[in-house]
């Protein structure tokens, strides 16, 4: 299957076209949610921007690709996707236009951080624009991706206006083992994150139940969205495993006695105290027995 060329994510025209579309679509979604009764407002889980945002990951260019255009698609070469090659993924290197247009680099060779930076800027730009038209951070997700464990591209969906989200295939069994995701969750102050593209390569009910349980065990994980679900019909165990998770009787929170507040610069000094108790109600970190 041929897809359209990878867009230049720093192209003013392309970014403006993206903005124009969600300026049209997002208000429709927000208006719909606004009209929902209070008990149904949870039905809007979130709005996702970007899609496996990367350079040369989902859209790529074969050597001599322009010459192939005039030939039949069935004669296109087949080159395997090289996840470990974080620059070209085993194909012709692309991304020169975007790193130049974004001002990240004007000479020399493209680096892994260049590609991360342009993807991060692109998602940050879109998310900032969405925030300005009223999408709350807790409802906004930026879709990133990584293929090589821990690669810098995992950083791309982290920005101040959205919650980060990633695709999970290799680590669908347990996102806690995904070092690129965990590195970013450790430094993200977003209220949520999401497995916004998720598929486990198994037809076994227990495997699906355990994998989804692991994924959703992080209280900040807002949702997991199953992709590539066409094969589910042939493997009834998948639906069974999903049902086991969804139907599990959760504990019902009757009353929240305490929920740790965000600690910002203005109150961090007062939150760390020495041996003497502050004698005022609150949450503190106390360093004891140091005299």
């Amino acid at each position, binding site marked *: 299957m041929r897809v359209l060329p990878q867009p230049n994510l720093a192209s003013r025209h392309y970014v403006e076209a993206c903005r124009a579309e969600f300026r049209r679509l997002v208000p429709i979604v927000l208006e719909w949610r606004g009209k929902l009764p209070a008990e149904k407002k949870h039905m809007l889980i979130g709005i996702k921007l970007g899609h496996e945002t990367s350079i040369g990951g989902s859209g790529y260019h074969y050597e001599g690709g322009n010459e192939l255009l005039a030939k039949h698609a069935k004669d296109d070469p087949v080159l395997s996707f090289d996840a470990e090659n974080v620059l070209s993924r085993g194909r012709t290197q692309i991304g020169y236009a975007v790193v130049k247009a974004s001002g990240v680099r004007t000479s020399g060779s493209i680096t892994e951080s260049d590609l991360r930076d342009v993807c991060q800027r692109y998602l940050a730009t879109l998310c900032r624009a969405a925030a300005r038209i009223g999408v709350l951070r807790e409802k906004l997700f930026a879709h990133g991706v990584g293929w090589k464990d821990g690669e810098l591209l995992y950083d791309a969906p982290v920005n101040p206006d959205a919650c980060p989200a990633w695709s999970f295939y290799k680590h669908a069994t347990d996102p*806690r*083992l995904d070092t690129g995701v*965990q590195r970013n*969750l*450790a*430094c993200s*102050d977003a209220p949520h994150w999401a497995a916004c593209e998720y598929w486990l390569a198994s037809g076994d009910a227990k495997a699906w139940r355990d994998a989804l*349980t692991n994924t959703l*065990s*992080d*209280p*900040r994980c807002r949702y997991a969205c199953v992709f590539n679900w066409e094969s589910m019909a042939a493997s009834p165990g998948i639906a069974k495993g999903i049902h086991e998770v969804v139907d*599990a009787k*959760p*504990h*019902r*929170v*009757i*009353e*929240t*006695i*305490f*929920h*740790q*507040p*965000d*600690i910002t*610069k203005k109150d*961090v*000094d007062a*939150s*760390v*105290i*020495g*041996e*003497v*108790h*502050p*004698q*005022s*109600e*609150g*949450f*503190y*970190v*106390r*360093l*004891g*027995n*140091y*005299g």
Partner: protein
Amino acid sequence: MTPIVPQVWDASAFTGVRTPPGFQFGLSPDANTTAVQMHGREIGIWIDSDHPRPALGSLLPITPAYWWWDMSRAPIPFKDPGRELAMSFDLKVPTATKTGKAVAYITTNFLFRDSRSHQQLWLGATVFDPRGESTLPDTVHLDNWEGGTQLPIHYSALNQKSQWLHPGPSSVLFTDKPFTDYRKLEVCVTAPELRAALIAMKKAMPKLANTSQDPRDYQLIHFNINPEVFAPQGSRGELGLSLRDVRVEMLAP
């Protein structure tokens, strides 16, 4: 009192959490010394028992905790039947090392107060201890370590064996090995479990015979997560961890 000072070195290699400049503190500005990081809903804690040594004794706790000082504001968790008290948070423990007799461990603690006799007691769960689960059967004793509260203290490992508490359905259990990924912990207490703890306390400490045995009489006046290094002279313990999203809730099972 030793003043708390800002630190500019990065404790993330020990705690597993990186905070922006201005969010890390300690007792000394020197690199690699005991540190606390706080940013957003994450807290990183690094204890090196040698840097600095405790002013007195051998015990070094650094304790995120909530205090209710006005007893009229303290919650009464079991005033209604069929409820569970739960403390949950995410935890990772990338670093735990020792030499000699030092021990590094992490507990969670509820402090209850009998509104009739005013007797207070701790109910604790050990969630990490390299000494292993077999060393942590249900135990009640007096908190009489250096700086201790001199109150009865109940300890169990967070597992399915304890008579006094239990893990929530999505909680990981006690472990004796460090881990670098965030894992959800949930420590739950029901009224029958608190009653069992009270019975065990009165049996072990007959002088507390007048303490109420009815969980409905008890207020929650404090809770904490207590990473601690015990390092007698000649030994050294190091403990690096981070935690986030602490919640205390009442649940309907």
